[in-house]
């Protein structure tokens, strides 16, 4: 694979792809000269073929679900059905203006309304808002709703959100965004929340707790009922981070576990694409207590037709989270996926995701790898710790990750959760075959054996990628964030 220059390097002054713009420059009458730009923006000037070739080549430099097994823990990298893409991109859906009247949107709104109903079903909640644009915004919505609830009751002393140490970084960051203090509580040796520490942490300042179950440690929090009682008992509410819903789909409901509000990453459990970083959708669902505070707009029925419910109908709402209604196109993809699965398909998602994770876990244990929680069932993911191998050979989790790339596998999540040293958080998902898992096990064993024979060789990885290991320290110390018209000054 030859390296591909930056698009600006293909640029030549005066080069055009002219079929994409009006044939002539329109008259600017009416625009005051003072408002006009004095010099044109430095965009590339390239032909259509150059654009197509450049971005086609760039795309080929990526690993993706469509090309590689991608067992990134906590990310649920499953197959993204192509039908969902095609149907969400029907011209009728793409062309609809967000402020278009409801009479020109009944077909679209019908999909959203049914999606809301299905999401109530999978969470056990009574209300849903589709508007959050990613998991973190769903978290924001959930915590803001908790805050609104306390405030509505005049209970203004609650300024702490409790977060377990295993939590995803978005949880504490969200609490801060909502103006809360974060209080971290530890995990016990078996991977459960330390309930004693929780008891000690709750009090009249407790606004709530943010939790995912199964946790990011890949295990199900068995004493969730007791935990909920502690928090509720202290006057706090429970927020469910639904990033791991794939593990329990059709097996258990956040509502009956005692949660008051939940967000779901549709781009994980409901298989909308990750798009190289987004967009996703982080829909939020709440029980009767918090439902009035859900963000707007929500799709409702008015005179037998679908209609947007806004602040007018929902005065206690925390309000809008986006200029319009959220990531509509992503919602349509999730809708298509859910309708294709149906009841049986959804339950099989969690079943086979868990089967794959437990199979991988048991076989890796059998091959001599250390598990973070060897006495536990895996949920849809589990953790291997490479502390022992690292101590023995100097080969780290990062080295394993890079060596996997050379063997045709994307790496699992590394160094998260932070509390497990040298960890790999491995989530195979239900759409991978047993053969693929077997090949992945072989690759890990192969790397481990090589580490023992020749650690330096593992540390040389990757060797087959478009670049070798990158200097992150240089990147942060000498930020080179935009094209300045020249190749990297230190490049060979």
């Amino acid at each position, binding site marked *: 694979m030859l390296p591909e220059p930056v698009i600006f390097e293909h640029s030549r002054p005066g080069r055009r792809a002219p079929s994409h713009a009006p044939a002539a420059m*329109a008259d600017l009458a009416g625009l005051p000269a003072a408002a006009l730009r004095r010099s044109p923006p430095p965009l590339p000037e390239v032909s259509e073929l150059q654009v197509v070739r450049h*971005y086609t080549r*760039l795309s080929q430099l990526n690993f993706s679900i*469509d090309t590689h097994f991608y067992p990134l823990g906590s990310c649920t990298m499953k197959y993204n059905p192509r039908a969902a893409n095609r149907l969400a991109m029907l011209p009728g859906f793409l062309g609809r203006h967000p402020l278009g009247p409801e009479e020109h949107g009944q077909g679209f709104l019908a999909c959203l309304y049914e999606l809301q109903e299905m999401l109530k079903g999978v969470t056990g909640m009574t209300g849903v808002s589709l508007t959050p644009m990613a998991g973190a915004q769903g978290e924001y919505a959930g915590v803001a709703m908790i805050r609104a609830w306390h405030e509505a009751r005049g209970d203004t002393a609650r300024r702490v959100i409790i977060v377990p140490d295993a939590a995803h*970084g978005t949880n504490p960051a969200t609490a801060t965004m909502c103006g809360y203090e974060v209080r971290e509580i530890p995990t016990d040796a078996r991977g459960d929340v330390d309930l004693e520490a929780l008891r000690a942490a709750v009090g009249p300042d407790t606004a709530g707790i943010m939790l995912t179950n199964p946790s990011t440690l890949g295990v199900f929090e068995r004493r969730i009922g007791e935990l909920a009682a502690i928090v509720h008992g202290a006057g706090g509410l429970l927020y469910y981070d639904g990033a791991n819903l794939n593990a329990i789909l059709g097996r258990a409901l956040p509502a009956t576990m005692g949660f008051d509000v939940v967000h779901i990453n549709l781009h994980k459990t409901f298989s909308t694409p*990750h*798009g190289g970083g987004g967009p996703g959708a982080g829909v939020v669902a709440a029980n009767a207590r918090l439902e009035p505070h859900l963000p707007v707009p929500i799709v409702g029925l008015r005179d037998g037709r679908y209609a947007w419910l806004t602040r007018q109908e929902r005065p206690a709402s925390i309000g809008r989270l986006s200029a319009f209604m959220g990531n509509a196109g992503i919602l349509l993809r999730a809708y298509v996926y859910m309708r294709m699965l149906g009841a049986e398909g959804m339950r099989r998602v969690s079943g086979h995701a868990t089967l794959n994770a437990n199979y991988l876990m048991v076989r890796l244990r059998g091959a001599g790898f250390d598990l973070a929680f060897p006495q536990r069932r895996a949920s849809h993911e589990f953790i291997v710790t490479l502390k022992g191998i690292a101590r023995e050979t100097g080969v780290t989790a990062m080295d394993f990750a890079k060596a996997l790339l050379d063997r045709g596998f994307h790496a699992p999540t590394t160094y998260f959760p932070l509390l497990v040293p040298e960890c790999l958080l491995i989530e195979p998902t239900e759409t991978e075959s047993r053969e693929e898992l077997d090949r992945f096990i072989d690759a890990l064993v192969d790397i481990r054996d090589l580490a023992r024979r020749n650690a330096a060789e593992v540390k040389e990885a990757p060797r087959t990628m478009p670049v070798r290991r*990158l200097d992150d320290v*240089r990147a942060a110390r000498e930020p080179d*964030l935009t094209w300045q018209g020249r190749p990297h000054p230190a490049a060979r």
Partner: protein
Amino acid sequence: MPFIPHTEEDVAGMLAVIGAGSIDELFDEIPASLAIAGLPAMGAGLSEAQITRLMLDRAAADGRPLCFIGAGAYDHYIPAAVWELATRGEFYSAYTPYQAEASQGTLQLIYEFQSMMAGLTGLDVANASMYDGATAFAEACLMAVRANRKSRSRRVLTTRALSPVFRAVACGMLAGQGIELVELPLAAGRTDTGALAGLSGGDFAALAIQQPGFLGTLEAVDELTDWAHAQGMLVIGVCNPLLLALLEAPGSWGSAGADIACGEGQPLGIPLSSGGPYFGYLTCRQALVRQMPGRIVGRTLDVDGRPGFTLTLQAREQHIRRSRATSNICTNQGLMVTAATIFMSLLGAEGLRRVAAQCHANTRSLVQALTALPGVSLAFGPYCHEAVLRFDRPVAPLLAGLSAAGILGGHDLSADYPELGHALLVCATETRSADDIQAYARTLASLLAHRA
């Protein structure tokens, strides 16, 4: 089952390895009291052919009305290459580029995107996107409050020309952190610079200026910028990025230029799609980069000294800094950025300029055609690419009549700007033809005549 590759033999073999009797047994750590038998309400799964027919029918049901609404989302032509490339599996189905060596495609593309956005806004650095324009604006305010160490004020000054939905979203997000938005009034559709004197000396972290304003009018950006800087405020420019091919870049406003720019990226190749997914962009001066929320890609070298790209300055982000991060954002709007980067490459500066100019010219034609009708007048100017029309009667029934004729006549301003009376915000992008404009004028004329 859809999307699951396991044969019965696979399942049996794998369970045997695990030592479990059934898949259900793997859930034995879920307390019995919590276990459910399934989700019968979800109904039976549909085949791809069945869901396709359903969705085709629903998409067709919504019709394809002729759209003269802008108000923050614009019906531009998107070259076919944009989405044929953006939906290639390697872009579409990749995760955030955490493993840099296996994600050079996405990383290099983001670096190119950052370069283009910095160039368009005339600022130094850009991030890899926010959720949409509204949240980008809210994050810009939060960033300004953090960054303005001199003022330490928790108030941001803005104007009534700012998009009402941007304002609403930001108010909510800022309120949590005790930050307040204060609004400058309008005079004849533009921010009333006469009101500045009264605010001088008031303590604000920043002034946010939308150019053109939500009502389509052009603001006195140079005067506003210089005034704010003189007051020790930072300046946030809120701009439609497409129009920046035509209008002065925020980085060049006044004598020192704005410090931060943000806005809605939708005009850069993103379909209307009922409101999303779009993306917010955010750019700033180099000095503020460590206060920037969101992902940033940098160019660096590999161990062989060859250039490559990687996520950088991650110490700002939630997965490292957790509760002290610059924002909670994690998943952003990556694929939209992919499309926008391809779009900007295809159009180039000259192409964007022509599109912007054509939008302006078409809106001017529309204004001429409609204000030729009795009872319709232009509210104020100078405008760019959208304009406010004033009517002699309520706008809502007229819009309903137009809608019934397959025309979306514009955005009714009565809820957000009651002080303007019967006012309608209209927009004709480069995709509206002279015939389309005539069709609108004809239909409106007959509605006005019938209901006179």
